[in-house]
Structure formats: C-alpha cells, structure tokens
C-alpha cells in the first residue's frame, strides 16, 4: 500500500472485512509512494519494485502460488507491478468497474536474456550503489545503448542510480540468473543401459555424456537446455528413426509428464542423421517453465 493517509485509513476496514472471511491480511507500506512527485519518482517506485520482488522471491520454490492484483493504486504503481509480475511470470489480474468481472492479463512475450546480461552484471552493481557524474560516461560507452534508459541522476547525492525500470530489470535478472544459469555437467546427458540411440546406428558412437554426441548443432541445443538449473538430466530414450531428418536441426516438443514421480518434458531431436527422442527431467513442477523458456521448437 502507498504511504498515503487514505490507504492507511482503509487498511483497518480491509483487515476486518477479510478477517471475517478467514483471510489473512498483511500490509506492506511502500515508503515514498505518496503525493510528492519527486519522492514518488525517486524512491517510491524503486521501493515498490524492491518490496514486490522480496515478496515474490519469498514464496519462490514453495507450494504457495503468488498472484498479482493490480486493480487499485496509482497508475504508475500498477504499471510497474504489472511489468514486474510479467517478468517473473506471476499471474496478473485486473478489474475495471464497467467490466465488473476479473480479467487475467495475458502473458506478454517478455523475458530476460540472462546469458547476454550476465556480461554487464558489474554495471548494474555499480549503478545500484551510485556512480558519480564524471565516471558515468566512461561506463556507459562500454554498455549496451539501452542501459542509459535504466539510470537517473539523484540531485541530492549528485550520483547516478538505477531508476525504477533499472531496478526492475536488475532484480529480475538476479532472480532469473539464480534459476537459469548453472555450470554444465556433461554427465547429465546419458542413455539407459542396453538402449540404442540414433548415433549408435548411424555412426557407431555410444553416448554416455554430452561430449559423446557427434553432431555439433545437437550438442549446442542440449548445452542450452542444461544451463537451466531446474533441469536435472537429459535421457536419450530408445525411440529413434534413422535417416528421416531433413537436414535441419531442431528440438520439437512432444509432451510433458508431471503426474509421475519424475517430472519430465519429452522433445524430439531432428538432425541430419534422423530423429531421436529425449526426456528432459526437471525439478518437480518445472515442466511448464521449461516449455515456456525453450518454446515448442528450438533451434541451435
């Protein structure tokens, strides 16, 4: 809730109302989110992004689903809450008086290229702490052009900081990085004993690790899959077809299985040698996330 006397006054009534429905209410006051333009822009929105990120992260990897209701509040507040929720793949709901019915906002194709921004993490760290005017340009010339839209000059401290958009970007990046980047363990690609693979037949090569895969393009795609820290392993299954590939290399989504002890998504590798099915085993509950991040057709 914003730091305004109106919302403070309303809080009491909301607590009482929802309490009677057995619903627990906990308030978080966003300091700086008030009717003072300067504070709203400088600290209010940044504070909002930080607080929302903390709440979302708190419930990450738990059995609790977090959703965002952006019906009330300042317009800028609801805009930032929506973007943040979309970046973190939290469902967003909204109601408009004339609809009088809840509307779920569809996901926008927004995601961060974690691998790309990983090279510029130092810049986010620096601007998060503040950069003097003199040093600013020397940093900016080494950064992607768009970075300059993520910072602002705080006249009180005479330093450049991440603006609310930059803060949204940075905190989302940190969370995504934690989920999506891991060191690749070659042994995570394997086949079961006594099963044959496409490359056993076409090239007489036995696959025990990722390095054994003789096709560079296939290897590249599988490396990308293994980067996600929620991917446990990639199992080459018995199903394959020799010679039915059309020269193009890609993974094609087949199905996802999340009602068994192991949760996995099945894709089919299409390559010059033919077709090979794989099961990508993921942490429980991450099948949808994998399909969301990879898409249903994946090229090297």
């Amino acid at each position: 809730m914003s730091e305004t006397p109106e919302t403070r006054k309303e809080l009491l009534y909301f607590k009482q109302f929802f309490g009677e429905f057995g619903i627990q209410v906990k308030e978080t006051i966003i300091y700086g989110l008030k009717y003072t333009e300067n504070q709203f822009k400088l600290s209010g929105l940044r504070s909002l992004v930080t607080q929302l990120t903390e709440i979302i992260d708190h419930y990450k990897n738990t059995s609790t689903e977090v959703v965002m209701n952006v019906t009330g509040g300042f317009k800028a507040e609801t805009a930032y809450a929506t973007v943040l929720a979309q970046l973190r793949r939290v469902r967003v709901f909204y109601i408009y008086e004339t609809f009088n019915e809840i509307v779920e906002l569809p996901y926008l194709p927004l995601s961060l290229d974690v691998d790309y921004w990983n090279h510029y993490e130092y810049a986010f760290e620096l601007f998060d702490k503040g950069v003097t005017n003199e040093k600013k340009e020397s940093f900016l010339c080494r950064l992607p052009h768009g970075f300059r839209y993520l910072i602002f000059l705080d006249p009180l401290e005479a330093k450049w900081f991440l603006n609310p958009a930059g803060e949204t970007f940075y905190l989302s990046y940190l969370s995504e990085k934690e989920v999506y980047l891991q060191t690749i363990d070659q042994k995570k690609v394997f086949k079961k004993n006594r099963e044959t693979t496409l490359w056993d037949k076409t090239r007489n090569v036995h696959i025990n690790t990722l390095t054994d895969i003789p096709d560079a393009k296939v290897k590249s795609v599988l490396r990308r899959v293994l980067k996600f820290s929620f991917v446990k392993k990639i199992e080459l299954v018995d199903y394959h077809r020799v010679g039915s590939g059309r020269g193009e290399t890609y993974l094609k989504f087949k199905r996802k299985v999340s009602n068994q002890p192991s949760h996995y998504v099945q894709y089919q590798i299409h390559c010059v040698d033919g077709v090979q099915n794989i099961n990508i085993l993921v942490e429980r509950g991450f099948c949808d996330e994998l399909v969301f991040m990879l898409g249903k057709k994946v090229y090297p």
Partner: protein
Amino acid sequence: MGINIITTMGTSLLSNVNRANRFEFGKDLTQIPHHVISEFMKQKRKEKREYEISAEINSTLQIIEKLRREKKTSKNNSFYFE
C-alpha cells in the same frame, strides 16, 4: 496449496463511501467518520453486494473464487494482501 494475492491499494473504498453520501465529505476522504464507513460496509454486506464496497474487495473476492475453482483448494488457503 496456499495462495498469496498481492493487491495494490487505491482509495476506492473511501471514494465509494463519499459517492454514496453524495460527496458530502468533499475531497479530503480521510475526514469521513468511522461510523459512516462502517455503516456503508454493513449495509452492502446485508444486501449481499460486497462487490460494491471497493474495487480491491471486489477483485480480491473474484480472484479467490476463480483460483478456488481452478485448484479446488477451498481449505488451507492463506492470502497476502498489500
């Protein structure tokens, strides 16, 4: 499975009370007396028109209903309301 609803808050409740009282409290919504707000809410609940109390209440109740229908988790839910 629990559900946490993060809700951004506006001034809908106080605005609705003011509107129902023909704007007699003017622009300073914080001046609306406690008993007027309580009476407004009590009346809406009596008429089973809770959704008219405030946009936050309306949307939150609808979200809860929708998620309950989806997940069939009518018990053991906790809600986080900001």
